[in-house]
């Protein structure tokens, strides 16, 4: 009797393992942050930003609290301030993409996913520098 229960438990474990290996759908969606430099008729330029949440569970944990920029010479430098809303340690990754005036991506597929570790409720900035002076907009993908 005891042995049978043990066997059933083992069987359930094997099934769980197989399911884990063959993989039910793993969510890889996240948050997208878009920043576009717009130039007003009087010559001043400003950054308009948008945050698109595709994964509400991740967005509950990581919040984009600020999007800033400055120019390093003629290169756009973008900075995101991320805050963890979670008490434990969070692991996620982000990737920058850069776009020119015509909306085309500059040097596509060259920016890589960068892993970040956020400790409980920590606030951190992640930065990226545009690959060229023609960049007028950027996009940051965040996922875990």
């Amino acid at each position: 009797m005891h042995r049978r229960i043990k066997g059933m438990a083992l069987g359930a474990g094997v099934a769980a393992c197989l399911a884990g290996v063959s993989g039910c759908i793993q969510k890889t969606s996240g948050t997208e942050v878009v920043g576009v430099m717009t130039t007003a008729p009087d010559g001043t330029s400003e950054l308009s930003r948008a945050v698109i949440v595709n994964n509400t569970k991740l967005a509950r944990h990581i919040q984009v609290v600020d999007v800033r920029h400055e120019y390093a010479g003629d290169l756009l430098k973008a900075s995101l301030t991320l805050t963890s809303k979670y008490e434990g340690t969070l692991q996620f990754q982000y990737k920058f993409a850069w776009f020119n005036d015509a909306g085309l991506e500059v040097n596509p597929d060259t920016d890589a996913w960068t892993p970040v570790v956020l400790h409980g409720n920590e606030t951190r900035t992640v930065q990226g520098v545009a690959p060229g002076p023609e960049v007028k907009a950027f996009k940051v993908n965040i996922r875990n």
Partner: protein
Amino acid sequence: MKRVTGIGMVVIAGALVLTAGCMGTKVQYGDATSAEPLSTDFGSSDLQQIAATMVDSLLADPGVRAASTARKPVLLVDKVKNKTLQHIDTESLTDSIRTKLIQSGKFSFIDRTTDQSALDEFNAQKESGLVDPAKAVPMGTQSGAEYILTANLAQIEQQVGSKTDVYYKFTMNLKNLRTGILDWANEKEIRKVATRSWLGR
């Protein structure tokens, strides 16, 4: 008695079929820029992170920017001193850094590792008799490097129980050949932690 053993064998055979049916190799294209590490060894994501950090820092540095506004400085990438215990293709790492810097349009690069091919072509143009001397490229007009990018890759590995902790540090310097001064320096630290467990996750 015999019957029971037969059932046992059927069960084992069934298990084998199950295993054989599930076992198999599925091959797919993956994300080349993925940051999901498989082991604590130096991997593609580490290479990409280091290259991105170095390029961003070099492009945004005020001192380097000042030197590269009037005209593009000529750079040479030195071999990376690999102080890890792994065999790492550090040339691939510096190739990535050089490629991104060339694409930025802020720097000029020369490459001494392919000088022999250039010399072979110059010789062919002069001595093969095939090339019109008027169309041949004159020799001895190339640029020399004004700066050298030097780098170190260090590793600290600690293993305790089921946990392996590997720390990589890549340090890069921009050496001005005229003054000998290191005009720029930056480093990138990466930590990878492997935990062996009996329960998978």
